[in-house]
């Protein structure tokens, strides 16, 4: 059977599974639709959270990012896992005890203010739409690369599947679909990694193989990798180029941003008890860690494999580089997709891959007769081409396609749900038309989910030029706006409406402006995005941390200068701090 047919069958089977689950878990009330009736087992919720959290970027791009960034890639590994510690210790149990449906609802009730709630809704919608556009794009990419169907058909198929299970099942349908999607994506991710680890180091556990010795060489993989990349003018793999303060700030912004992302927080509303919320965060991180500790191994091994393929002989020798005519089959495949691009600058019919941006290496390259780097490598190739580089059978390649789609769809569905809940629950039911019945609200939620899917599909089909640049927004804004407001709402009884609103707006405006100044997005950047121009040496990716600190400072100052919150709000804070007496979520206490 050829690869394309096999991929269609595997992807089609996974879709059939998701739709089957959707029919089995239809939502019958708003409680089902928003928080899956709070009946989700903590381990199942952990798995669903992991699938919800790990996006197309985690699955397709992260290992590649690490492969080319080396130590600097650690900001993503630590930043996108450490947030779960903050969630488990500072947010999840208390929000579960509070026991309602949405994040803006908490902010609105805790700060006794529809204005605060509306600010939270605006943050949520901005964060979630930024994120969802990237997911739909990921679905489209997998479809067009593995199934060779046009982008718009791939997008329409992906939207159709999400539509069925998100609109029909709401949070309940999404949860159990995400459990299935987690299984698909983790299997697809680890199988090629295990085989590559065995081929290179003889150790079947990629996490250990990364620290292992190379078969037939006896040298440690990482030492050897450091050596060969420096011989080609690159920075040593285990060294970083970012400044310590920037690595610190980016890691913290990603951690705090993770803990402040509404679609992640809301997953902890679905478990039965407060103690389950604590444990469930641990399960979520365990399932995430399986992929996140495999990724650095995949990155390092793939970088080593790639360079070994391109540099079969001695570096600098006339016949040391790979002859273009002898390139392996996977090289040809990925050249066709544009992820690998070869330009023979010195006309020797060989592929010279090195760092031509390193001034200290220029003289050496000149001596070798190299006239510039001849191979452009897209980072996505590291995961997508892995099974072919390791010469794995076709069914593994088909599985990687299904895994990439599962990662994108599961995240998209979670995001679409919080967007639709923000409309139907926070805006419609609470502010615009409080009189509607549960059934009407459920219908409104379904319509909002449907509209959000169409809009997300449009963004995936016709991405505004800035999608890639605004990922920093999602984390920075979550860190600077939602996280401090929720945290203070739980840990400071004295925090009041004025303080919270002033803090959120300060964090939001500061972070937004800083990113706009350096990234432009809607216009030409006002200042060049280089370290010398940054405030305290912190890049736009890490500036959410400064926004968060400003938020805390302003919130404290303003709250001390204004009246304390009313007695019933202080009682609410007492109530959420104690697990006893947690009830199933409902729309009115």
């Amino acid at each position: 059977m050829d690869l394309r047919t096999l991929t269609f069958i595997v992807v089609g089977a996974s879709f059939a599974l998701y739709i089957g689950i959707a029919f089995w878990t239809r939502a019958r009330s708003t409680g089902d639709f928003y928080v899956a009736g709070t009946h989700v087992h903590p381990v199942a919720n952990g798995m669903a959270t992991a699938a919800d959290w790990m996006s197309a970027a985690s699955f397709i791009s992260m290992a590649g990012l690490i492969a080319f960034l080396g130590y600097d890639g650690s900001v993503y590994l630590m930043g996108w896992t450490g947030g779960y510690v903050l969630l488990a210790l500072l947010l999840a149990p208390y929000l579960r005890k509070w026991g309602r449906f949405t994040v803006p609802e908490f902010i609105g009730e805790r700060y006794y203010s529809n204005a605060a709630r509306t600010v939270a809704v605006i943050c949520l919608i901005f964060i979630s739409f930024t994120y969802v556009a990237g997911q739909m794009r990921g679905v489209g990419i997998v479809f067009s690369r593995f199934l060779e169907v046009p982008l718009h058909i791939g997008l329409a198929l992906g939207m159709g599947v999400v539509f069925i299970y998100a609109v029909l099942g709401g949070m309940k349908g999404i949860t159990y679909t995400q459990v299935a999607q987690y299984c698909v994506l983790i299997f697809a991710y680890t199988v090629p990694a295990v085989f590559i680890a065995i081929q290179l180091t003889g150790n079947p556990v990629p996490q250990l193989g990364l620290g292992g010795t190379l078969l037939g060489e006896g040298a440690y993989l990482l030492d050897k990798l450091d050596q060969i990349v420096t011989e080609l003018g690159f920075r040593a793999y285990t060294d970083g180029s970012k400044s310590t303060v920037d690595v610190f700030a980016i890691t913290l912004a990603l951690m705090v941003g993770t803990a402040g992302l509404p679609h992640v927080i809301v997953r902890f509303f679905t478990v039965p008890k407060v103690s389950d919320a604590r444990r469930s965060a641990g399960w979520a991180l365990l399932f995430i860690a399986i992929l996140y500790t495999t990724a650095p191994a995949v990155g390092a091994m793939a970088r080593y494999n790639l360079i070994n393929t391109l540099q079969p002989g001695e570096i600098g020798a006339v016949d040391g580089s790979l002859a273009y005519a002898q390139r392996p089959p996977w090289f040809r495949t990925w050249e066709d997709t544009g992820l690998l691009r070869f330009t023979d600058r010195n006309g020797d019919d060989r592929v010279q891959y090195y760092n031509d941006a390193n001034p200290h290496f220029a003289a050496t390259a000149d001596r070798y007769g190299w006239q510039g780097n001849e191979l452009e490598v897209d980072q996505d190739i590291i995961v997508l081409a892995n099974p072919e580089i390791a010469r794995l059978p076709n069914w593994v390649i088909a599985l990687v396609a299904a895994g990439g789609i599962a990662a994108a769809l599961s995240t998209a569905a979670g995001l679409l749900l919080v967007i639709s809940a923000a409309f139907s629950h926070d805006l419609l039911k609470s502010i615009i038309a409080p009189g509607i019945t549960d059934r009407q609200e459920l219908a409104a939620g379904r319509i909002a989910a449907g509209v959000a899917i169409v809009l997300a599909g449009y963004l995936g089909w016709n991405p505004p030029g800035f999608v890639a640049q605004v990922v920093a927004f999602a984390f920075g804004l979550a860190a600077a706006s939602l996280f401090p407001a929720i945290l203070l709402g739980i840990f400071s009884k004295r925090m009041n409406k004025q303080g919270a609103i002033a803090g959120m707006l300060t964090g939001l405006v500061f972070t937004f402006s800083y990113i706009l100044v350096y990234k432009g997005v809607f216009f030409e950047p006002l200042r060049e995005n280089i370290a010398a121009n940054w405030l305290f040496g912190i890049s736009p990716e890490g500036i959410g941390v400064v926004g968060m600190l400003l938020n805390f400072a302003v919130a404290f100052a303003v709250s001390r200068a204004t009246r304390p919150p009313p007695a019933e709000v202080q009682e609410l804070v007492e109530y959420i701090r104690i697990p006893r007496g947690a009830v199933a979520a409902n729309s009115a206490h």
Partner: protein
Amino acid sequence: MTERDDRAYWRANLKLVGLCLAAWFVVSYGFGILLVDALNRISFFGFKLGFWFAQQGSIFAFLVIIFFYAWRMNALDRKFGVDED
């Protein structure tokens, strides 16, 4: 259950949270970022130790921290009689 007990429970919780966050900070920001160059001089099963903390060790430590917190808190809930059962 008196108000004083509730307050003692909350103080015990904050102490535990503080301890766990200190560990969270040390394994990632300490070992993985601030002290990375010093730790990289130590070899650890084929890894430079600082690099290992930044790419694997901190994640394993986060896991231990969360499960430890959940275990201690659930015990604390029972001790103060504020658990849900």
